[in-house]
C-alpha cells in the first residue's frame, strides 16, 4: 500500500473499526442473554439464576467497557479523518448518529451503572428493568448505526444541492426505512447473538470438561444453545437476504464476492472455491455449483446477474455522464444566483446529476475531472472493482462459519435436552475450540461489507479518495502508531482479565435477596 493520506486514513479507519467490532457483537448478544437469565431468576426466585446473571454480567462488563472506549473514537473519526465526507453527507449521515445517542446509547450507558451497582439498591423488578434497558439500548444503538451504514451502502432519500455543495435529505423516512439498512441490522444483531451464544457455550463447555460449576454451566448452555440456534438460522437467512439485495444495489460487490468476471447465462453458477486473479481477470482452479448463484442473487431462473467486466463498462458510461454533470455544476457555481444558471446546464445537471459521484472517481488522477484522458477514464472505471480475492475469501470464511454455527447450536440443543453432555466430550471440546470463530466471522463480514464498498465511501455518490481530510502523512503515521499502541496494550489486558474472571468462575452470592417490588408498593398492600 502506498503511504498517501487516503490509504493511511483508510488503514486507521479499518484498524479502529475492526477493533471496535471485536467488542460490539458480544455486548449485543450478552445483554439479551443477561436479560433472559435474570427474567428466569425473577420469575422462579432460584438463586442459581441470579448467580448466572452476575457471573456473565462480570464478563459482560469487561467487554462492554472497551466497546464504549473504542466507540468514542468511531464517533469522532469521521470529522477528524474524513472531513470532506462529513461536510458532504453530514446532513443525512449525522442524524442517525445523533439519534443513536439520544434514543439508545444514553439508555444503555445510564442503566449499565445500575446493573452493576444496583443489586442492593433496587427491588428485583427494578433491577430487571435496568437490565432490560441495557439490552434494549444496545440493540437500538446497533439499529441507528446500521441505518447510517445502510445509507453508505444504498444512499436513498437525498440529493445534491449545488448551493451548499453537499448532499441533503429530502425524505427522512426513506433513510430510516432503507431496506438495506433494516436487513443489515437484523443480520448484524443476529450475528451478535450468535457470538454471545458461542461465547457462553464455549466457556460453559470448558467448565463441564473441568468438572466445575456444573449447574451453572448446564443451565447456561440450555439458554445459549436455544437462543443461539434461532439467531444462527436468522444470520444465514438475513445474510441470504443481503445477497439478494446486493444484486440490486451493489452488483459490483456481489460480482466480486463471486469472482464472477463474465456475465453468465441465467441461472448463474456459484463458484464454491477457486483462486481469483486480478491481473488475468479470471479464476483458477474454480469449482462451480450450477444454478445456485442465480437463485441466491435473483431468486429466479431467468434473470441474469451482470459480471465484473460488464459492470466496468457500465461504470465507464456513468463516469462520462458524471463529467457532463460536473461541467454543468461549474455553471451553477459561476452564476450569481440560481436564476442566472443557463437552462442547458440546469437540464444537464438534472439529467446526469445522479452520476456526478462517478466523475469524482477521476479526482484520483486529475484535479478537474473534465480534463481526464481516455486512459484515466478507463482506469477509473476499473477502480470500481474491489479487490476480488479478498472479498471472495472473506465471504467464504464468513458463510462457512455461519453454517458451522447452525450445526453447533443444533447439536447442543439436542445434547442439553437429553442432558447427555458427558457422553460426547468431543462436542464439548469442539465448543471450546469454536470460541474464536464468531469473531473471525464478524471481522470477515465487516471486510465483505465495507472493504467491498470500495472505491466508494458512499456508494455511487462520493469516492473514498475524495472524502479524506487534508492531513499530512507524518500526522497520520503518528495517530496510527498511537492507536495501535493503546489498542494493543488494552487487548492484552482485556484478554487477561477475561481469562482470569473465567478461571475464577462464579462467586458465591450470599447477599440478602431483594424484595420483588420496591418497598413502598409492598407496604401499601
Amino acid at each position, binding site marked *: 500500500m502506498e503511504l498517501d493520506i487516503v490509504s493511511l486514513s483508510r488503514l486507521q479507519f479499518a484498524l479502529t473499526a475492526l477493533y471496535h467490532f471485536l467488542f460490539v457483537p458480544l455486548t449485543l448478544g450478552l445483554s439479551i442473554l443477561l436479560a433472559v437469565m435474570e427474567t428466569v431468576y425473577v420469575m422462579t426466585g432460584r438463586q442459581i439464576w441470579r448467580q448466572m446473571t452476575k457471573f456473565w454480567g462480570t464478563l459482560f*462488563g469487561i467487554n462492554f*467497557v*472497551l466497546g*464504549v*472506549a473504542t466507540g*468514542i*473514537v468511531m*464517533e*469522532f473519526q*469521521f*470529522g*477528524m479523518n474524513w*472531513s470532506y465526507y462529513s*461536510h458532504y453527507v*453530514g*446532513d443525512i*449521515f*449525522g*442524524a442517525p*448518529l*445523533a*439519534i*443513536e*445517542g*439520544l*434514543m439508545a*446509547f*444514553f*439508555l444503555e450507558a*445510564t*442503566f*449499565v*451503572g*445500575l446493573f*452493576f*451497582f*444496583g443489586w*442492593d*439498591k*433496587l427491588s428485583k423488578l*427494578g433491577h430487571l428493568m435496568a437490565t432490560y*434497558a441495557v439490552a434494549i439500548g444496545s440493540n437500538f444503538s446497533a439499529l441507528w448505526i446500521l441505518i447510517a451504514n445502510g445509507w453508505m451502502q444504498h444512499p436513498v432519500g437525498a440529493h445534491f444541492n449545488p448551493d*451548499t*455543495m*453537499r448532499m*441533503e*435529505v*429530502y*425524505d*427522512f423516512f426513506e433513510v430510516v426505512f432503507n431496506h438495506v439498512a433494516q436487513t443489515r441490522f437484523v443480520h448484524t444483531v443476529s450475528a451478535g447473538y450468535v457470538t454471545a451464544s458461542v461465547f457462553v457455550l464455549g466457556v460453559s463447555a470448558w467448565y463441564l470438561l473441568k468438572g466445575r460449576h456444573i449447574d451453572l454451566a448446564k443451565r447456561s448452555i440450555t439458554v445459549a444453545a436455544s437462543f443461539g440456534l434461532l439467531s444462527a438460522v436468522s444470520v444465514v437467512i438475513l445474510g441470504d437476504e443481503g445477497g439478494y439485495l446486493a444484486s440490486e444495489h451493489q452488483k459490483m460487490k456481489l460480482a466480486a464476492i463471486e469472482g464472477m468476471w463474465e456475465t453468465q447465462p441465467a441461472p448463474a453458477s456459484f463458484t464454491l472455491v477457486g483462486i481469483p486473479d486480478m491481473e488475468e481477470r479470471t479464476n483458477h482452479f474454480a469449482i462451480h455449483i450450477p444454478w445456485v448463484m442465480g437463485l441466491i442473487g435473483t431468486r429466479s431462473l431467468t434473470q441474469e446477474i451482470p459480471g465484473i467486466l460488464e459492470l466496468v463498462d457500465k461504470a465507464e458510461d456513468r463516469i462520462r455522464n458524471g463529467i457532463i454533470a460536473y461541467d454543468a455544476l461549474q455553471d451553477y*457555481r459561476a452564476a450569481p444566483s440560481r436564476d442566472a444558471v443557463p437552462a442547458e446546464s440546469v437540464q444537464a445537471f438534472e439529467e446526469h446529476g445522479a452520476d456526478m459521484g462517478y466523475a469524482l472517481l477521476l479526482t484520483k488522477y486529475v484535479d478537474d475531472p473534465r480534463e481526464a484522458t481516455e486512459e484515466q477514464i478507463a482506469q477509473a472505471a476499473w477502480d470500481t472493482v474491489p479487490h476480488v480475492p479478498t472479498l471472495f475469501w472473506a465471504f467464504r470464511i464468513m458463510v462457512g462459519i455461519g453454517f458451522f454455527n447452525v450445526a453447533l447450536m443444533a447439536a447442543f440443543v439436542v445434547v442439553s435436552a437429553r442432558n447427555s453432555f458427558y457422553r460426547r466430550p468431543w462436542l464439548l471440546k469442539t465448543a471450546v475450540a469454536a470460541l474464536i470463530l464468531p469473531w473471525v466471522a464478524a471481522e470477515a463480514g465487516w471486510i465483505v461489507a465495507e472493504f467491498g464498498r470500495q472505491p466508494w465511501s458512499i456508494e455511487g455518490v462520493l469516492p473514498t479518495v475524495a472524502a479524506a*481530510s487534508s*492531513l499530512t502523512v507524518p500526522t497520520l503515521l*503518528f*495517530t496510527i502508531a*498511537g492507536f495501535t499502541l493503546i489498542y494493543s496494550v*488494552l487487548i492484552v489486558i482485556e484478554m487477561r482479565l477475561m481469562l*482470569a*474472571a473465567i478461571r475464577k468462575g462464579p*462467586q458465591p452470592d450470599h447477599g440478602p435477596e431483594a424484595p420483588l417490588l420496591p418497598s413502598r408498593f409492598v407496604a401499601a398492600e
Partner: protein
Amino acid sequence: MILHELMTYETLRLIWWVLLGVLLIGFAATDGFDLGVGMLLPFAGQSDVERRIVINTIGPVWEGNQVWLILGGGAIFAAWPPLYAVSFSGFYIAMFAILAALILRPVGFKYRSKRESARWRRNWDWALFVGGFVPSLVFGVAVGNVLLGVPFRLGSDLRIFYDGGFFGLLNPFGLLCGLLSVAMLAMHGAAWLVLKSSGTVAARARRYGSWAALATLLLYAAGGLALWLFVDGYRITGAIDTGGPSNPLAKTVEIAPGAWFANYLAHPWMLLAPALGFLGALGVLWSLKTGREVRTLLLSKLAIFGIISSVGLLMFPFILPSSIMPGASLTVWDASSSHLTLFIMLVCTVIFLPLIALYTSWVYKVLWGKVEEKDITEGGHAY
C-alpha cells in the same frame, strides 16, 4: 414533507445554536465532574481504600455522563456538519490526545481494582488522572483558539484546508483558557466528591475545591481581561441571509479590535452570563465552608453554565471564525444542516431529551448517598 416549513430555517438555526450550548453545558455539568474527580484522584485519595472511594463516587454514573460527549459529537455532526468537519480535522492532534485520554478513563475505572498489585493500581490511578486532566485542558485550549480564530480556509467546493499545527494551539491565550477549564472542572469534581464522600476524602476535596474555585475566579477574570485587551473579534460586514443556504463563502467578515464585546454592549442583559459565572464560583468558595453539599454542587453547575454561555453569547452569531480567511468563518446562519434535518433532529430532541433527564434523575436518586468504606470492602459490586 411540508411539516418542517412550520418553523422558519432561521428559528431552527437559533434553536440549534441554543441546543449546542445545552449539550456543551450538559457535558461539562455531568461528565465534567467525572473529569474533575479523575484529576483529584491521586490527591484526594491517599490510601488504596480512599482511592477506591473516590472512584466509586462516580463508578455507576460516568458511563451515562460520558454519553453527553458522544451525543455532542453526533448532534454537531447532524446539526452543524461544517463545524464538525472543520473543528475535528483542524484540531486533529488535540482530538487524538482527548481520545487517547478518554480511552484510558473507562478502562481505568473498570480494570483498576480487578488486580491486587499495588503497582498495577498506582499506574491506573495516574492513567485516570491523565484521563481527567488532558481532556479538560484540551477542551479549554480549543475554546481559547476558537476565540482567537482558527487558521482554516475553504475551497470553492467547500473542501477544508487547515494551515496550523498542534503547537500553534498552545499560545498564551489558549493555555490560559485551558487552565481555566482545568480549574473549573476540578472545582466541579471537588463539589461532587464533597457530596458523595465523608471523612478525610471529603475534607481534602473541600480544600482542593476551594483552591480550584479561587483559581477559576482569577483565571476567568484574567481571560476576560486578556480578551478585552489583546484579542481581536470578528464581525459580519454587509448583509447575511439568516434563512439562506448553508454556504459559509457567501458572506464577508472583518477582524476588528473589540468586536467580541459588541454583543455585550448592544445587549447588556447578556452580561448576566459572566455575572453568573463569577457568582457561581464565588458561591462555591463560600458554600464549601458550610455543610450544604447539594448547594455547593448546584452553585458549581451555575458557574459552569455562566462561563460557557458567556463565551457563546459573546461570539454570536459566529461559531468558528477563520483567522486566515475570515469570510469562510462558520456562523449560525451558514453552517447548519438543511432545514428538514434541523427540524427532524429537533423533534427527536424534544421527545428524547426530557426522557433522558427523567431516567437519569431517577438513577441518581437510586444511587443517592455517600460512598463509605464498607461499600468498598463488602458487597463486591464496587470498582
